[in-house]
């Protein structure tokens, strides 16, 4: 028997004229945890689908146990013990845990009839193998994400799995859940099963994997034991260049300048109390704290989504009390929500329409939209934002995450916003786009004179981009770290002290 479980030899895959994979080789040994890293669109999913037999490579060879396989299909891939856990888990929410676990095996066995006793037996066995207990009769849709993931992993391990591929498994998990997942992954490994861990989160790769392969633009750009890498090396491999880690510098303007945003004694009982906040032009102020600290509630109140607050809000010296989102926009506020995909964008619509979505009233003459004026504005914004797309007419769902985020930013700039509130601006964005978004935010602050409030859980992001960071806890501002003492350790310490 060969010592390689799976070997991809010089695999290329083309879709029409597009090269998704270019001469990529990958070796997986039995029982190893291997990490496949790369930015969105680098060919990670094409590799997964090639190994799963969904795509047939245009060139190259797939070897399993040292023997070449031809005409590889999904069914054959499963037969040879390869299991893929996709990001959406491919579970059936309307069926019970037991049935979800047993369906695969029963299908593989080519069963025509269903024995419910057997379903329970199979499910019990599958969960026992992972060492977890779970209510077998619960509907899967009633489980939390981490529970669904356990079901998906347990299901993948049935039927003599030898390689489990996990596609971005930690995206929707909290840190304790990630730890639990890693324990399970190591358990799987102890049973001699190889795991291919697909991710773009560097810390997790360094923590869990033994070997690493990095893809960029469909090419393999680095590989080796994890000991050969550190964050900077992986970043360089993934993006192709070093990313600046220069912190944001801001100096107050000379003289007595009016603050952009001045919040005094803002309170909503049960959400937050006595918040005082002053933002000046060009400032980027971080706001951190645990989930439930009241930070999102505070942002939403400013943005007119909960007008029942007491206290005062002043923008550029003018007292405002936004009672609706429209009010807030008119007073010069902009809010970019956490989940830009579900809350912020019309995915099938063009970049242009998405940009104009909140500012159409700025481009009307009479009852009609002034197309010329709107076109000029969106074209200028399209160029200024450096959105990578053929034209402003491109639908937003054709863009990468980072470019989508820029469309959202552009939209708010078109409203003439002077105060920008960002909630988790780079959640789910890969490292290269992240840097570009950060650069854009800084430009907006320095060149356009915006005041930015950046709500984030990402400590490096806050440290790098903010001139000061406020820590919120149980509805109050409890701490503030000024620029001169701001570093990752300091912020981490303060956040840990909250518990």
């Amino acid at each position, binding site marked *: 028997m060969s010592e390689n479980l799976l070997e991809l030899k010089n695999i290329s895959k083309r879709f029409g004229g597009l090269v998704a994979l270019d001469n990529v080789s990958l070796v997986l040994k039995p029982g190893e945890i291997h990490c496949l890293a790369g930015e969105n669109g680098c060919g990670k999913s094409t590799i997964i689908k090639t190994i799963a037999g969904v795509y047939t490579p245009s060139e190259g060879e797939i070897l399993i146990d040292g023997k070449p396989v031809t005409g590889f299909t999904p069914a054959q891939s499963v037969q040879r013990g390869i299991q893929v856990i996709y990001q959406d888990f491919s*579970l059936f929410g*309307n069926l019970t845990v037991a049935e979800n676990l047993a369906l*695969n095996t029963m299908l593989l066995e080519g069963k025509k009839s269903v024995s419910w006793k057997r379903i329970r037996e199979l499910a019990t066995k599958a969960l026992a193998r992972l060492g977890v207990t779970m209510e077998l009769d619960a509907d899967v849709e009633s489980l939390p994400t981490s529970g669904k993931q356990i079901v998906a992993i347990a299901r993948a391990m049935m039927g003599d799995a030898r390689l489990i591929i996990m596609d971005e498994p930690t995206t929707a998990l909290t840190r304790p859940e990630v730890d639990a997942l890693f324990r399970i992954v190591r358990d799987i490994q102890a049973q001699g099963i190889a795991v291919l861990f697909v991710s773009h989160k560097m810390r997790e790769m360094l923590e869990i994997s033994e070997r690493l392969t990095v893809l960029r633009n469909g090419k393999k750009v680095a590989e080796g034991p994890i000991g050969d890498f550190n964050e900077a090396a992986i970043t360089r491999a993934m993006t192709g260049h070093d990313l600046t880690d220069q912190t944001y510098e801001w100096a107050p303007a000379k003289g007595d300048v009016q603050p952009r945003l001045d919040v005094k004694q803002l309170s909503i009982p049960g959400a937050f109390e006595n918040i005082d906040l002053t933002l000046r032009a060009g400032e980027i102020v971080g706001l951190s704290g645990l989930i439930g600290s009241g930070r999102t509630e505070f942002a939403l109140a400013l943005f007119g989504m909960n007008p029942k607050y007491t206290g005062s809000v002043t923008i550029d010296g003018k007292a405002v009390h936004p009672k609706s989102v429209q009010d807030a926009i008119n007073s010069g506020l902009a809010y970019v929500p956490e989940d830009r995909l579900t809350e912020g964008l019309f995915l099938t619509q063009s970049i242009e329409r998405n940009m104009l979505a909140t500012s159409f009233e700025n481009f009307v003459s009479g009852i009609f939209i002034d197309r010329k004026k709107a076109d000029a504005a969106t074209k200028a914004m399209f160029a200024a934002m450096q959105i990578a797309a053929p034209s402003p007419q491109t639908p937003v769902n054709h863009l990468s995450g980072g470019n989508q985020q820029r469309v959202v930013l552009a939209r708010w700039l078109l409203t003439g916003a002077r105060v920008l509130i960002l909630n988790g601006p780079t959640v789910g964005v890969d490292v290269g786009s992240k840097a570009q978004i950060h650069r854009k935010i800084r430009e907006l602050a320095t060149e356009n004179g915006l005041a930015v409030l950046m709500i984030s859980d990402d400590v490096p992001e806050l440290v790098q981009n903010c001139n000061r960071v406020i820590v919120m806890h149980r509805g109050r501002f409890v701490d503030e770290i000024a620029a001169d003492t701001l570093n990752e350790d300091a912020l981490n310490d303060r956040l840990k002290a909250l518990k």
Partner: protein
Amino acid sequence: MTIFRRSEFIIAAILVVAMIFIGLINPAFWSMDNMFGLLRSNVIIGIMALGVLVVMISGGIDVSFTAFAVAAMYLTVKGMLYFGYEGVLVPFIAATLIGLVLGAFNAFFIHTFRMIPLIVTLGTGSVVRGLLLGLVGTSIINIDKMPPQLINFAKVNLVNATSATGTNYGLTAMILIYLGLALVTHLFLRYTMIGRSIFAYGGAPEAAKRVGFDTRKTLLFVYCFAGALAGFAGLLQGSMIWQANPRDFAGFELDVIAAVVLGGASIFGGRGSVAGTLLGVFMLVMVKNSLIIMKVDTTWQRVVVGLIIVGATALTAWRDRKKLV
């Protein structure tokens, strides 16, 4: 599965309350005569509802089955008259097959072109009705021409009795066919892989494909099953009312869908049960029957059916949404 049990329990409870209420207003409701009549009215709508249930579990909807039922009935009766055929079994098989083949067209369009089931079945239903009236005929085949063996078959009663006023009545044996089909449907949904594939497809179509279900087969089965049951029910309807009317069942699909929704099947797919559907069918028939007894105008009955659809759908939608949060 507790949710199923729970929603069926609720439906049954509502049914009992409604029956007591209706019985108080109109004591004749509880008479054996009325009960037998009610059960008889369950047969056709019930058999069709079983088909619609399976379609709805798969996440689809079917509004073409009444057209298929009419086509199956009218073509079969016409054929029987043309050939002078004397039996009963072959015509029923023929009607079932006509429905099945027409159902296969639905499955073909829905699977091959990934079309929305509502649009496909609106289209095929309209085409089938139009072709039937345009090519086959528009005249009603009345009792004088209707094959007598069909009428005699549908006349078979399980129990016969004579009321105080001297009229004869009985419990039709057709109820056994309905309950038999219901049992088969239940066993099939619960204990066969293809039955489970319907639930899986209705819950997550993409995942069903990935797990390795042959979803083309699943869809083909679902729509053929609905078509076949409709075809069978169509001919049975003709036999029970002693006439074959090519314009029969107009608007009836709404009643059937209302009954299935009332029985707790989810409009989002993935949820539903035969037991619930039996209860839903009984409830709908009972409500309509009571409206007739209370001499409510038929136009108002449409209003009631519409309200039942909206109300029951809202309830199940609310139930399913709540679970997702």
